[in-house]
């Protein structure tokens, strides 16, 4: 007892003694204008809710204090987990409580919020208050990712604060190892290069899984985000694998009364979707055993631990995998490529009919129930100032302004990441976010339960997709979107 009191007391004393301010020098143009603009909102505290990711943590640790220094407006950011963040924002907006002045909007939920008129029209609001328009803010600076947050007439409803593409990562050390290359050539008759097609990808995956087994290494041929109870697996299939087989927008056809089954004009259970699922299941079997419990987090950690030779990994993780020695064993050994595709998908992506992978990210928007809409307008502009972007990108690997690509720190990082930013800049247009559905989470949850059964083997892939397509239509009917 006494010992535990002593231990506890000294630990508490230690906690109170250790303290460090996380301050960083932020220089912003036209400081006087900002000061004057902020003076009107004396005593206002802006409150925001977001997921505790590195870009958001940078906002609460660095940008919010800097903004307060600049304008005198306090900003409090509540960081929480992914489901909680949504639930809290939705409860606040639905009940019109007005707790939050800013909510994090992931690209996939924005259409649901727009359908409910939850968000303030940023462009219109700024036009209505010309005195609040900062000279160093320009909507035209934003990358094309901002289009995900525009309403029907092109007005902006959310200020992008992070953006990533889900890329094909591979281990350059393995792919360039002469011994490995020779063995691969001998076994398959091809040269070992990053795959362009699914067949090539599967061949590489089989080769490395066997190589790992033969050499008693903890190495497998691919990652798989194939959790049997978490929607991460659903996302990997519908947003990363199915599109590369030409099944876009989850196989749901908005022009045909939101049909999902082939019979009604959808493609969720099309032969392409079925081929995609079978291919993905094979990859899952070649992946490390933890894949059945893997969400995006574990996929990244698996790759960072050096357990996979290649894999599809979210861009927000690519940066730390390639550069953070505390978290990754493969620093400096990571190459980046476009995901493997079926024939015709690249043409679809270039013409705008389809896409080759997932472009994700989020924005800050202001709920219409906010009591400080005008002060929030200032903060949202602040988030898009060119002068604060470079350090933010260096700290959290996100880019939302075109000019950020040319800053020295990002260029250095680009080299370290095997050209990830160059790819995002040049090929970003080939990737796309979630389809513009207001029923995103609802259809996902309804169908995911069937996908989990396919993953455990209780259901064949063909029947699984048939059932999922039927289930999606049923859910859309219940929700009233499908007549």
């Amino acid at each position, binding site marked *: *007892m006494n010992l*535990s*009191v002593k*231990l*506890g007391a000294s*630990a*508490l004393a*230690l*906690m*109170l003694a*250790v*303290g*460090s301010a996380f301050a960083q020098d932020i220089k912003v143009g036209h400081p006087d204008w900002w000061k004057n603009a902020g003076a009107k909102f004396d005593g206002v505290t802006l*409150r925001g*809710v977001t*997921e*505790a*990711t*590195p870009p958001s943590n940078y906002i609460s640790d660095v940008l919010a204090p800097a903004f307060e220094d600049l304008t005198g407006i306090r900003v*409090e950011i*509540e*960081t*929480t*987990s*992914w489901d*909680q963040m949504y*639930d*809290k924002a939705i*409860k606040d907006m639905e*009940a019109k*409580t007005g*707790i939050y002045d800013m909510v994090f909007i992931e690209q996939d939920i924005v259409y649901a919020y727009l359908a409910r008129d939850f968000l303030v029209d940023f462009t219109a609001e700024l036009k209505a208050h010309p005195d609040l328009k900062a000279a160093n803010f320009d909507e035209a600076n934003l990358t094309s990712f901002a289009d995900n947050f525009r309403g029907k007439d092109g007005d902006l409803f959310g200020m992008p604060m992070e953006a990533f593409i889900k890329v094909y990562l591979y281990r350059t050390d393995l792919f360039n190892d002469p011994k490995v290359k020779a063995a691969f050539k001998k076994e398959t008759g091809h040269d070992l290069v990053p795959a362009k097609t699914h067949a090539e990808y599967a061949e590489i995956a089989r080769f490395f899984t066997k190589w790992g087994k033969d050499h008693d290494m*903890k190495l497998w041929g691919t990652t798989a985000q194939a959790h049997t109870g978490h929607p991460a697996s659903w996302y990997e299939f519908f947003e990363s694998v199915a599109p590369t087989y030409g099944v876009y927008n989850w196989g749901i056809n908005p022009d045909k009364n939101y049909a999902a089954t082939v019979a009604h004009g959808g493609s969720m259970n099309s032969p392409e979707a079925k081929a995609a699922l079978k291919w993905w299941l094979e990859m899952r079997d070649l992946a490390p055993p*933890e894949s059945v419990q893997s969400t*995006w*987090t*574990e996929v*990244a*950690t*698996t790759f*960072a*631990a050096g*357990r996979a030779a290649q894999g599809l990994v*979210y861009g*927000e*993780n690519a940066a*730390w995998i390639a550069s953070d*020695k*505390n*978290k*990754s*064993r493969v620093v400096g050994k990571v190459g980046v490529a476009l995901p493997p595709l079926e024939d015709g998908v690249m043409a679809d992506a270039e013409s705008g009919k389809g896409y080759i992978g997932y472009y994700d990210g989020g924005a800050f928007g202001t709920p219409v129930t906010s009591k400080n809409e005008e002060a929030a307008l200032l903060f949202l502009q602040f988030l898009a100032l060119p002068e604060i972007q470079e350090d933010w990108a260096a700290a959290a690997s996100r880019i939302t302004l075109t000019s950020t690509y040319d800053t020295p720190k990002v260029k250095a990082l680009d080299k370290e990441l095997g050209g990830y930013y160059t790819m995002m800049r040049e090929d970003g247009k080939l990737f796309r976010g979630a389809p513009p559905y207001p029923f995103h989470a609802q259809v996902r949850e309804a169908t995911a339960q069937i996908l989990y059964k396919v993953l455990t083997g209780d259901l064949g892939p063909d029947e699984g997709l048939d059932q999922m397509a039927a289930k999606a239509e049923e859910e859309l009917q219940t929700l009233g979107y499908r007549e």
Partner: protein
Amino acid sequence: MKRRHPWLYLLFWIAVSFLTLFPIYWLFVISVKPAVDLFSTPDIILKSFYWQNYIDVLNDRTLRGYMVNSLVISSGNAVLCTTLGFLACYALSRFDLPGKESIFFWTITNRMAPPAVFLLPLFLLMTQVYRIGDFTLLDTRIGMILVYCTFNLPFAIWTLRPTLDGIPKELDEAAYMDGASPFKVITEVVFPLCRPGLAVTLILTWVFAWNEYLLAATLTNFSARTLTTGLSEYVTTTGTEWGIMAAISVFTLIPALIVFGLVQRHIVTGLTFGAVKG
């Protein structure tokens, strides 16, 4: 009665303790490993220690605020629930109230509710109904102390009722005969005899409040956030910070251990009272 050698019990408890402690030991192992080592074949014995997670946690000022909130909320709630539960049980045990057995059973039904759907009405009540002027219960410590009563007060009533029923009524009747007031009877006659039960109730209500996550996550935003909600900040789409989560968890064990140490003695003290009573 045959008495087995005390050393046999000691051996037995050492074996049981290994099983009990293993997941906690593993929590510690996770907290002193760099993230990169978590995804590899694990060794049972630690070979090196990596303290960065602890340094990060100690440097985090918001966590200190969370720790204070957690301590205030769980201690306040445990004391409130144990007190109210004790008084309620005294009433249920000593008075012939009409329908008291139904009331007793009804109290426990408050704990049975699946929490997820009750979050919405609680949120609405705490923001729009239970308010005085601009003051609302949302995101306040007192609000959380009251909300936690929904699961802790029934618990207190149910664990204290057998204890109070077990104390012979003759004892308080004798005190009343001597002219004692009800207040005196409750505090000086009944209370001391209930100490083991009260201690256990206090500990367990404290634990339930300390560990609660879902209600705190929804009903606090900035000023009343607790440690468990702080933990959820480390589960994100860009990676779960297992190491930091584990380091915080190790820290949360310290205040909990102190509270346990302080209160547990009274369970033992209770032994002698039991003997006196017999």
